[in-house]
């Protein structure tokens, strides 16, 4: 494994940490199970790609707009969630993922099936970062997002989220507006996914519709659930594990996906709250 390759993996892992933490706001805190998170990831990445390639905007601007537009679409696409619950929401978000990817694929403005290529490297004070520098830069954002999560856990927002997750009627009865808090969750989640999208687009230098298709949503959900829904450390562990696991399993290359699937099934059967979840073995091991 070359050093460059390791840096690239670290960057991917960082991006997926941000994605799984952002999905965790939705699932773990607010209890809204979404299987279409890659759509927001894609919206962020395409925002950056379109703005940088077609309009020649600089990195700072595209970063800001990716977050804002990601958040805006989170808000917009969260609106249907006000009418749809539980399994229906899962299905609706799957549908959403397909529709968004189809729009990328079939609208020429977004480059069609061949995507958008030729993003310039991100520049900071006129300088380009190398692969290692970019890995460090994404790690900086991971730290920011983790701090944000720690902050969220302390404020009323978290209590409102937990209330609607655990019982919507009881939440309303103590003055929590269920629609408002769902919208908060979708907006925050969308904005953070937008950030991840920006980081991805500049890492790759190009975006393709299939980078944001349904299987990617599955991967993100798996990271969150495997690590431990509703915790901060869980989704981080899940993202790191599932980014590096395929690499570690390289020596049994041919059985990778099979093992991947079996691991998911076994962990879920015997550790349903996730490895670092409230009843997870790893959590208990650390506490001792």
């Amino acid at each position, binding site marked *: 494994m070359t050093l460059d390759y390791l840096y690239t993996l670290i960057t991917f892992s960082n991006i997926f940490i941000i994605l799984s933490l952002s999905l965790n706001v939705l*699932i773990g805190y607010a209890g809204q*199970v979404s299987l279409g998170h890659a759509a927001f990831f894609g919206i962020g990445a395409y925002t950056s790609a379109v703005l940088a390639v077609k309009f020649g905007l600089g990195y700072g601007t595209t970063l800001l707009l990716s977050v804002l537009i990601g958040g805006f679409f989170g808000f917009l696409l969260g609106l*249907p969630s006000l*009418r*749809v619950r*539980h*399994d*229906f929401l*899962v*299905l*609706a978000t*799957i*549908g*959403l993922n*397909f*529709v968004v990817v*189809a*729009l990328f*694929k*079939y*609208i020429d403005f977004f480059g069609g099936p061949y995507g958008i290529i030729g993003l310039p490297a991100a520049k900071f004070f006129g300088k380009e970062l190398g692969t290692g520098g970019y890995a460090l830069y994404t790690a900086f954002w991971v730290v920011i997002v983790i701090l944000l999560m720690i902050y969220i856990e302390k404020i009323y927002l978290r209590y409102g989220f937990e209330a609607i997750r655990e019982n919507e009627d009881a939440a309303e009865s103590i003055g929590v507006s269920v629609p408002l808090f769902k919208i908060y969750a979708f907006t925050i989640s969308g904005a953070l996914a937008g950030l991840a999208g920006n980081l991805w687009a500049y890492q790759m230098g190009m975006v393709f519709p299939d980078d944001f298709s*349904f299987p990617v949503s*599955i991967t993100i*959900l*798996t990271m969150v*659930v*495997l690590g431990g*829904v509703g915790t901060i450390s869980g989704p981080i562990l899940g993202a790191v594990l599932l980014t590096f696991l395929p690499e570690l399993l390289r020596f049994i290359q*041919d*059985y*990778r*996906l*099979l093992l*991947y*699937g*079996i*691991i*998911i*099934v076994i962990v*879920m*059967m015997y550790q*349903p709250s996730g490895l670092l979840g409230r009843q997870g073995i790893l959590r208990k091991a650390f506490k001792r």
Partner: protein
Amino acid sequence: MQIVINALVLGSVYVLISIGLTLIYGILRILHIAHAGIYTLGAFLGLTFYALTGNFWLALILSMVLTGIAGVGVYSYIYRRVLSKERIVPLVISIGLFIAMQDLYRLIWGAYKKPFALDLGINDIKGKGFVITQHQILILSLTGISLILLYLLMNKTKLGKAMKACADDLVMAGALGINVERVVSFAFFLGSALAALAGVLIGVYENNVYPTMGDEVSYKAFVVIVLGGFGSLSGAVVAGFILSFAETLLVAWKGFLLPRDAIAFLVMILVLMFKPEGLFRRAST
């Protein structure tokens, strides 16, 4: 006319797959994504037994029975143990299972498309401006027979009524002395066998079988059960045909902005938002 026939054929397959999902969702409220893996298993087993025995009908029946048993296995070794957990747990398990199944098939049967050449020795029916191929005749007649048998099973037998009772209220059904375990196992058997039938038929129709053939099916079938109203068999049947007709017509009428998959999902989202009980109310209530 040709369009109608094509749509009927496509719809038949949607319906056969959706029946299992509908039964399982109706009773256990599990989104059984791995059902698409079961369908693929059916296709591979059918192909394998056909190659071994040379007898299509024997291969079909063997495939349906074995796939049905595999479905029961998925229930009793996996789902049954996590039913009391949060709903997201069986959902994620189902996804993991689907991934593992597809890769297992790749390891066993290879990653590439395998032809499923079958000549039944029936003549194609040719009319003015349309042809019904022998494979289409096979699909339409087997689907028709299955649906009639299913109707009789659900409405005329004790087992069928027990299944309906379980779908209405699992706990109550248990309290009334229905052997819930057996009924649920049977629902998995039946649903999986019908998925196997669909898999074999599609394999024959498209003349190929491959590990990821369940991908499109895995989510398309959910559109059907949403449109049909969760858990309603008759609704799923009608919805399966509506979806196939809508898709076939849209493909025939070019110039539409979105591909047909996206349309199916757009319609699904709208239905979920504005008519969450599905387009058809549940027949049993």
